[in-house]
């Protein structure tokens, strides 16, 4: 396989499994330099721009001469410059069937072209495109202009590498940290024997909580549980071995590189330790909301500036390994006790005397900037999975607001033909409706159908797939939290908004005002 064939497989297969299989086959069969360069491109490690988009455009204008308006029309219809050029200038009848590597040759051509004078470059680029198949031309241009993206995550690529050479995924993640050298011996370097330290850097299966059964709680012996806040962040294990510090999220993602500040703080921890806890936004004194964490997760590069504007820290609540010793079969209280001896930010535990203590703590949860409370059995050991009778979560009731439907859009998958994605609005001080949330779920199938018909009949305007409807229908929405946002016209962003019910009993004038959110924000912690 070569990179073009790999791309076709990745682009045209919907299942993650099929994508993984294609990657495994590619890594196993491709020339090692081809696979090295492919891994670089697929994991976003290299996005150097060799050919400016403006140059690509100029080349097309030149080829179209006085018909260049026609090129603009094509570009508008396709929406992607590389693809437009590939369709127009590649050899339509050529099918890339060769298994020969392409990437190192392409890289040499890119370098060559980038050194040419514009006029010469354009002529050579066009004749190069004519010698390529459409997919080849598309990929060549995408890689050259720095806009290459395909639907695979970095984690999936790493997983496939691990499978292709029969190595542990976590070890591969560790070995791929930092600078990646794309040469012919990259796989050989990865295949070195695994050390004990590398094995120690792997995360352990997470223990998960069940929802708190409020009714059965009457029989609870409060003397057997410990209570703490349910922190609103990213669940993670912080691992320190002799040689490395790693941060793994519950989604089996190595997120070490996203949080250099946490890694920095962890250097003072004793070695051979695994902490279970939560990555939180802000500082222990001044929590920020979950939204701020998203920014950290979504950035390819964590800049110094981002570390200042979006600081993060790790709050530990369990200790799974200490000084190389597995702590998981010790009871919770023993683990908590050992944790308290370690110099690390940790979650406060309360041992309730009565059920009211738990209630009181839950009532304070919102002001504390948390999602609710965790109730843990004092004698529970730590086992991976959602174990009954070990940990429970008792979340806050969602905050609510009554909003007016203003836009509707057809959904996806099962709801492809139903207008099920709603944009909901509240009143501002000028008595205008401003959008506050998009909600996708919460109605029954029958309600969705009825609303779909209503939407079709009450459409004021269509913008592509989006319909603006008469502002008449009111829905009660629930959400888990809210934050100020400069990106939204309303000035607020809601967390996990969803529709609780269709309020056919009230009219749009009864919907909430933005001041309602101000009040809610005052109730919860400062943001």
């Amino acid at each position: 396989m070569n990179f073009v064939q790999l791309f076709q497989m990745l682009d045209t297969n919907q299942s993650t499994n099929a994508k993984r299989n294609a990657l495994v086959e590619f890594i196993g069969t491709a020339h090692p330099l081809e696979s090295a360069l492919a891994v670089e491109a697929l994991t976003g490690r290299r996005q150097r721009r060799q050919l400016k988009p403006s140059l690509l455009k100029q080349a097309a204008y030149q080829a179209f001469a006085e018909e260049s308006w026609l090129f603009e029309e094509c570009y508008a219809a396709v929406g992607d410059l590389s693809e437009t050029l590939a369709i127009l200038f590649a050899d339509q009848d050529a099918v890339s069937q060769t298994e020969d590597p392409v990437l190192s040759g392409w890289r040499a051509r890119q370098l060559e072209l980038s050194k040419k004078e514009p006029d010469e470059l354009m002529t050579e680029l066009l004749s190069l495109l004519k010698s390529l198949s459409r997919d080849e031309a598309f990929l060549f241009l995408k890689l050259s202009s720095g806009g290459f993206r395909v639907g695979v995550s970095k984690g999936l690529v790493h997983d496939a590498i691990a499978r292709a050479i029969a190595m542990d995924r976590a070890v591969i993640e560790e070995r791929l940290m930092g600078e990646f050298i794309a040469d012919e011996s990259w796989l050989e370097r990865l295949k070195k024997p695994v050390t004990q330290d590398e094995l120690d850097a792997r995360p352990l299966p997470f223990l998960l909580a069940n929802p708190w059964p409020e009714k059965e709680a009457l029989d609870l012996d409060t003397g057997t549980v410990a209570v703490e806040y349910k922190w609103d962040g990213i669940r993670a294990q912080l691992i320190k071995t002799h040689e490395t510090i790693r941060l793994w999220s519950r989604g089996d993602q190595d997120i070490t590189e996203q949080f250099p500040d946490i890694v920095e703080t962890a250097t003072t921890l004793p070695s051979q330790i695994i902490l279970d806890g939560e990555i939180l936004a802000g500082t222990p004194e001044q929590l920020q909301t979950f939204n701020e964490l998203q920014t950290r997760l979504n950035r390819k590069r964590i800049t110094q500036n981002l570390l200042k504007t979006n600081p993060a820290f790790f709050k530990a609540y369990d200790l799974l390994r200490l000084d190389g010793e597995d702590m998981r079969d010790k009871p919770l209280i023993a683990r908590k006790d050992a944790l308290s001896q370690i110099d690390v930010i940790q979650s406060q535990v309360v041992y309730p005397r009565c059920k009211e203590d738990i209630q009181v703590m839950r009532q304070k949860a919102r002001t504390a900037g948390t999602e609710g409370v965790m109730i843990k059995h004092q004698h529970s050991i730590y086992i991976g999975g959602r174990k009954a009778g070990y940990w429970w979560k008792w979340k806050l009731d969602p905050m609510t607001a009554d909003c007016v439907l203003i836009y509707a859009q057809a959904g996806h998958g099962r709801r492809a033909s139903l207008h099920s994605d709603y944009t909901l609005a509240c009143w501002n001080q000028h008595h205008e409706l401003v959008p506050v949330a998009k909600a996708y779920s919460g109605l029954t199938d029958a309600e969705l159908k009825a609303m779909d018909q209503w939407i079709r009949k009450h459409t004021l305007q269509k913008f592509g797939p989006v319909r603006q409807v008469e502002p008449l229908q009111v829905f009660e929405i629930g959400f888990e939290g809210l934050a100020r946002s400069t990106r939204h016209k309303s000035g607020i962003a809601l967390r996990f908004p969803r529709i609780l019910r269709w309020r056919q009993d009230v009219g749009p004038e009864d919907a909430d005002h933005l001041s309602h959110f101000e009040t809610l924000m005052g109730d919860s912690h400062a943001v």
Partner: protein
Amino acid sequence: MGRNFASLRNKDTMVSKKRRHRDPLIIRTPEGLFCPKAKAHIDPWRPVDCALITHAHADHARAGSKHYHCAQGGEGLLNKRLGDHIIEPHPYGESFALGDVQISFHPAGHVLGSAQIRIDDGESVWVITGDYKRDPDPTCQLFEPVPCDVLITEATFALPIYRWPSMDQVMDQLFGWWDHHIRNQRTPVLLCYSLGKAQRIMAEIKERSDRSVQVHGAVANLNVEYEQQGVELCPWRRASESDKGVSTDLIIAPPQVAGSAFLKRFHPTELAMASGWMQVRGVRRRAAIHQGFVVSDHADWNSLITTVKESQATEVYATHGETRVLTRYLNEHLGISAERLETAFGIEDGVDQ
């Protein structure tokens, strides 16, 4: 998207405002394109006395008119689509008198029995292409250029990005995709228009292999009509309720079944679509389709331009699709007087709607 009925109403516009032809042979009325001298409408979108039909797709053939004329070979499909109506078929190329003009149907290569309509009043000749393509298609007669003074053409894919690959290339790709997914225990499902495209794919399969397919009911009904007209399709059967699990047959179904119970029974499925729109990656992705095959029953850019040139028409009207691009190109670069003509065609056509 900008076409709708409201904008077509109350506007009995003369097609030819420039009046190089003192008596335009065709004008637009609320019912559709109309030839006053023949007292007949072409592909009317409301019931009329006399309708000349280019082909049986729903946006061109609507029920309720008193009398229909079509090309021979298309009457069966029309019958299926319209129900009980008076339909008069005419052999390709044979003209007949209607009112004060001579009418004839000519192969359009779009689907079985599709036609261009030629109207001649002795002074000038007008041709309406209807939907057409120039690529060979085993299910219908090859397109024939018809010289005329005024050409009314479709413009669905009037952009240079639309260049159709050869059927050999597409079928290789289709067979590769089909085999890949049955090896991986997934049912290959090809979504395409049930009238025309489905049968074209099946006839192409027949020419190249002894593979068999299962089809959705909407396709099955039309297959029968094609076979009665002597079109050879690959072995097929109607997918039944009792079919469960992964199929090694290709499933052919209209795009509307995506996400329906019909597909669930073949779970896990892999969806592909055969359409000219699949030429653009973004369109395919927005339709949540992972594999697209570029197969169109419409003319691509080069075919549209070639057809205009070969017709030797001095005036051109573009009815639906990228009419703005086509008319501008003809006016500015080929020196052919061209105008856009708003119609209700194309509205129920394709996956982009």
